[in-house]
């Protein structure tokens, strides 16, 4: 998909976390394998904290090391991504910046790449966001919990923007997993397929619920996303998320519908997010009822438009009714 290549060409952190959202659903097993492998890496790295433990005896780390060496000479990032994408059990290491990383076992903690370390730091920083806001202080506190000096925050040239974008990418990948899981359930016949409107409603609600722990500071995060140098990345995340939701909703359209549907869902999502920011009802009930109403509006509009247009051009609007 086009968004797949856009993900590769852009910000390096997103290569790791956003890759699943851009991959087709038949690789959904691969996504979960990657997620498990990422968790395993986190556990390994925590246990391998003393730098001289390069001779750790766990077999998974040695296979990682071999795989890492094998991909060290890849010159094209796309090639390495596709190669490693076919091996679900292994990590997806990025092309390393320097070629000497695998020469000796001295760099014990360097069995991961810089981007993976950065995403680990940002994940650790998320728990300090309620305290420090979306800022470099939160990243510094996150780095310190990993045992790194606070000076390592200098790696994040975009500062707070890196943290927010990392969080958004993380939420998107979680959403994709949930949707893929549901899709699998439906395929296996264990669950009933939902109507489109319900599906959209639940997908948007699930996605927005991920903001609830950070809702106090979310206005700050939104303002960071609107900074000019962050707009391309935030729009890319938004569009890939909306694309995923529509894909799992069953949309396979190839005409103007593709654009109108995504534009509509983007509008619904953004307005609901804004409502959520100032919602004080228990468990955000007002927000979800607002969401219901908006989706209902769209359904009504689509069906009435269809009635009007059906005589002229039967193929124009489809998929939103029922």
């Amino acid at each position, binding site marked *: 998909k086009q968004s797949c290549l856009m993900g590769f060409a852009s910000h390096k952190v997103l290569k790791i976390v956003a890759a699943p959202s851009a991959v087709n659903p038949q690789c959904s097993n691969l996504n979960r394998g990657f997620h498990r492998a990422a968790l395993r890496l986190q556990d390994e790295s925590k246990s391998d904290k003393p730098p001289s433990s390069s001779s750790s005896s766990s077999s998974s780390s040695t296979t990682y090391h071999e795989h890492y060496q094998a991909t060290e000479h890849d010159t094209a990032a796309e090639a390495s991504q596709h190669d490693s994408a076919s091996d679900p059990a292994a990590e997806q290491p990025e092309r390393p*910046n320097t070629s000497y990383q695998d020469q000796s076992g001295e760099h014990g903690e360097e069995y991961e790449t810089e981007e993976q370390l950065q995403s680990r730091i940002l994940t650790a920083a998320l728990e300090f966001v309620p305290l420090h806001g979306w800022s*470099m202080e939160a990243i510094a506190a996150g780095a310190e919990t990993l*045992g790194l*000096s606070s*000076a390592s925050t*200098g*790696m994040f040239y975009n500062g707070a923007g890196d943290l927010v974008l990392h969080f958004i990418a993380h939420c998107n990948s979680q959403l994709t997993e949930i949707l893929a899981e549901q899709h699998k359930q439906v395929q296996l016949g264990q669950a009933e397929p939902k109507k489109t409107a319900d599906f959209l409603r639940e997908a948007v609600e699930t996605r927005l619920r991920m903001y609830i722990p950070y809702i106090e500071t979310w206005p700050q995060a939104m303002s960071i996303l609107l900074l000019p140098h962050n707009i391309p990345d935030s729009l890319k995340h938004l569009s890939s998320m909306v694309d995923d939701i529509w894909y799992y909703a069953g949309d396979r359209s190839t005409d103007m519908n593709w654009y109108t549907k995504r534009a509509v869902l983007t509008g619904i999502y953004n307005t609901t997010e804004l409502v959520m920011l100032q919602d004080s009802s228990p468990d955000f009930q007002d927000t979800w009822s607002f969401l219901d109403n908006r989706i209902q509006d769209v359904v009504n509009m689509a069906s009435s438009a269809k009635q009007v247009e059906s005589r002229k051009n039967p193929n124009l609007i489809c998929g939103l009714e029922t």
Partner: protein
Amino acid sequence: MFQRRSRGQKYTFWLRDGFRDGESEERIKSYHRPHRRSSMQKSEYTCDHRPRVYKVFENVAQKYDIMNDAMSLGIHRVWKDALLHVMHPQPGAQLLDVAGGTGDIAFRFLEYIRLQEERQKRRAARSSQTPSWQDISNNYSTEDESRESRAVVCDINKEMLKVGKQKADSLGVSAGLSWVVGDAEELPFDDDQFDIYTIAFGIRNVTHIDQALQEALRVLKPGGRFMCLEFSKVNNPILSSIYDAYSFQMIPVIGEVIAGDWKSYQYLVESIRKFPNQEEFKGMIEDAGFYCVKYYNLTGGVVALHSGFKL
């Protein structure tokens, strides 16, 4: 004019016991720790630039700051401020400024941290409501626990450190500042001590740059940052010709007029030309073991700021 030191007065490398004779002068407090490596042979020292470099800076120490302003037309302040801005130190960070001489970077570092802390306090005061007595007492206990940021200025040359100390006294800055005599190729510090290592306009004077980089890697904590400000290659041909003309014709003249020392500033300009360019230096930093190495060109390449992380 400044005082010239009499001949025959040798400097004490008192970390290497009995290596050189020296005068007993006012000792500047140092971190005394036995060296891990065996002391080097005397012949190695006489073959390198250290005595010459030492003499150069010994001669110019008193006028160092004035000369910096005159030669760079005051732009060196902008460069040093840019270094701090890129560094963006967090409160509690420990800085080691090697070849720090008169302490410019260390003063700016402490000021930056002080402003950061004030800003944080203001933000915390604004957001918190009237704290209860429990909260106030908790705040008192946590204030002492948080690490205070510290700046250590290390230089091979005692004269430069003396000038720096005088500056510190006149500015009234004393908390969190230490002055240490030491050689960049063999730092008198333990491993994993510092968050940030800076060397501003000093690394070209080091004989074995790779050793200095290795030492930097050693004393930095994991996650620590290495930052180096140094003169570098100007790529733009027009700017390059202006810069060359200015360097070779104006700077020694200024040196003679203000500091009375043509040769030292001739040496300065030549050492700038001999220093590797941005990409080569970046390669050297990566070879030493730093990651995420990046450089920023300031003033069109006249000065380059290199940064690397120990990960």
